[in-house]
């Protein structure tokens, strides 16, 4: 098994292969790729597949072991986070995170990266338990009200997940669903205080 060497042509091929093979079920899209060289990759995501996310996916290819003829296959890979796109000079967008202790950190980022990508790329304390597929609430952020209305409206799926977030506010969103754009250049978001609602079980004798 070896790592696939990325080149622009191959990347284009993979994306078109994936798009041809996509199937929809409920509100999700599933992409699967079958290709003689790339044995298979399976991606499930509720977001449209784009070039950025494909670059961030580790793909391993199948090889034939000539002595045993035992075929080895790739692992199911999820979209890896924590890899950021470098902003083009002059096109940097700014974002400020307010951390749990109140500290503010500002970063220059590229258009299209999600807040989850950015937070994880800078090692901030934000989990993306479901890998950024809008299936949990662990990347909950509180958006500065000044910027909230500039964001595209949350989908029902995102709102369903926000229902389960701790410390929900009027301007809460999921970090994985907000993509950086010129409209929100300079946006400020706070990471919620992770205090769980106190329940009876915390006071067990």
């Amino acid at each position, binding site marked *: 098994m070896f790592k696939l060497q990325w080149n622009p042509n191959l990347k284009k091929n993979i994306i078109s292969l994936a798009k041809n093979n996509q*199937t*929809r*079920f*409920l*509100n*999700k899209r*599933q992409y*699967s790729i*079958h290709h003689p060289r790339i*044995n*298979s990759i*399976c991606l*499930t*995501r*509720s977001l449209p597949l784009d070039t950025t996310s494909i670059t961030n996916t580790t793909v391993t290819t199948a090889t034939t072991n000539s002595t045993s003829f035992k*075929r*080895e*296959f*790739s*692992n*199911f890979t*999820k979209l890896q986070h924590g890899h950021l796109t470098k902003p083009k000079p002059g096109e940097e967008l700014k974002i400020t995170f307010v951390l749990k202790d109140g500290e503010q950190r500002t970063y220059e980022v590229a258009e299209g990266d999600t807040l989850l990508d950015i937070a994880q790329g800078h090692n901030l304390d934000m*989990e993306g*338990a*479901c*890998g950024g*597929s*809008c*299936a*949990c*609430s*662990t990347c909950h952020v509180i958006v500065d009200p000044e910027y909230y209305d500039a964001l595209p409206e949350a989908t*029902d*799926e995102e*709102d*369903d*997940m926000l*229902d*389960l977030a*701790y410390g*929900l506010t009027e301007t809460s969103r999921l970090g994985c669903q907000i993509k950086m754009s010129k409209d929100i250049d300079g946006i400020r978001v706070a990471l919620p205080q*992770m205090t*769980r609602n106190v*329940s009876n*079980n*915390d*006071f*067990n*004798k």
Partner: protein
Amino acid sequence: MLKKTISIIGSGPSGFYTAYRLLKKSPIPIHIKLWEKLPVPFGLSRYGVAPDHPEVKNCEETFKLCFKEHFNDYDYNNCTSSQDQQQQQQNSIEFIGGVTVGGSHIKLKQIIDNQDIVIFSYGCQSDRRLNIPGEQTTKGVFTSREFVNWYNGHFDYSLSEKFNNFPWSKVKNIGIIGNGNVALDLTRILISNQIDEIWNNTDISKIALKNLQNCNIKNIELIARRDFLNSKFTNKELRELWELEKYGIKGTINKEFFNKNQFDIKNMDRTLKRRVEMCDEYMKPFNERTKKNYKKFKPLDIVTKTWELDYLKTPLRINKDSNGYIKSLTLCHNIITPENRVVPQLNEKITYNIDLLITSLGYKGVPLPEFKSLDIGFQKDHISNVKGHVLSSSGNIIPGLYASGWIRRGSQGVIASTMQDSFEVADTVIKDLATNLNGQTNYPKKLNVESIPHITWSQWESLDKEEHRRGQLSSKPREKFLSIKDVQDHLSSL
């Protein structure tokens, strides 16, 4: 400095997230032993999450990272060379799969005696029951835990004759008791399993899927003791059920239980408000719906299957036919008092004719066999604890013992809440680890697992790879091993 040794019992989301946090945040070097009863890790992520929710299982990737970054099959407290000593300063984790703590190979006491810290995160392994006549003796009555384990390919159930020899083709009307997400998952799987685009590319057990597809389901009744406002499921799962209308699967709630005008919507929390709106919209004819979100897919004109949310009922008795199969369920109406107590009206009995009953009342935590002799407190369905510190039966904190996840709080909440819980417990452990260091003399606590036959992480990785390979043959993310024998055969073929 010697590494602190930590044993975590159970490798589901709570165990893994506790380990993940410890590895990430511990200020002093630690070695984690992660014990798992089954040969495979991930607990309810693998065997609880519905197969058509693969994105929820993405947390497994985080767990795999723990091993990628900190993996050690070997306890470095035992070695002396300089390279080893360097590695002594790094956090490490080891997987001990296929070993029952308290079983023939290792006792809980041995682990506690030989580790600095032991964390219980073994979840809830039993079922809450109705305790009504016929529940345990009637064919066609299953608990949700058994049922979910069966279709998720759990070793204890996937090949069970109780399921695989059941006459599924006779199933037309189904009753599900309970109002949580598991009840909705079950409904979705039962009612939509013939729709290939939903199920063909999932890792559902193919034996279960084939059996379920033989059903000729007409209606599924979801029965709850309380009312609509007390439903425990989340909006995502409910929305998925309503959305099946585009396949001719229609849901209803009787006006008696759902009347928008009688609800105090103003004072409802956001979640409930959205739930009321969703149900109200979906029950309107398509053309009369006000929001575009509810008009995405036109429902099929022909309704082939129905589901109904039914409220304020208490099941009293399960009635069987001469062959011992379930025939009907006798229930009575309930009222809820102003003090929010449920009072069954035993003189108002009704009967539902059903061919299958699933009780989905929640998973129940049970104590480990040695808890009594070790004086570890257990109440109702979870380990006695204060903020994760395990308590003795008399209520004193037992130093070095912790609990996290469902076995600490009871079977409630999604993976994100379990993650939060595990993080809090891990942070407590870290704090205690740091303070214990001050002034105390350390002596190495070692536990040698070489003599215990177990599945290592590398072996699991090869099982994982094989499951992917088998899955890929039919465009699925994986095809699970359904029996321990199959696992053993594969491992010995390597």
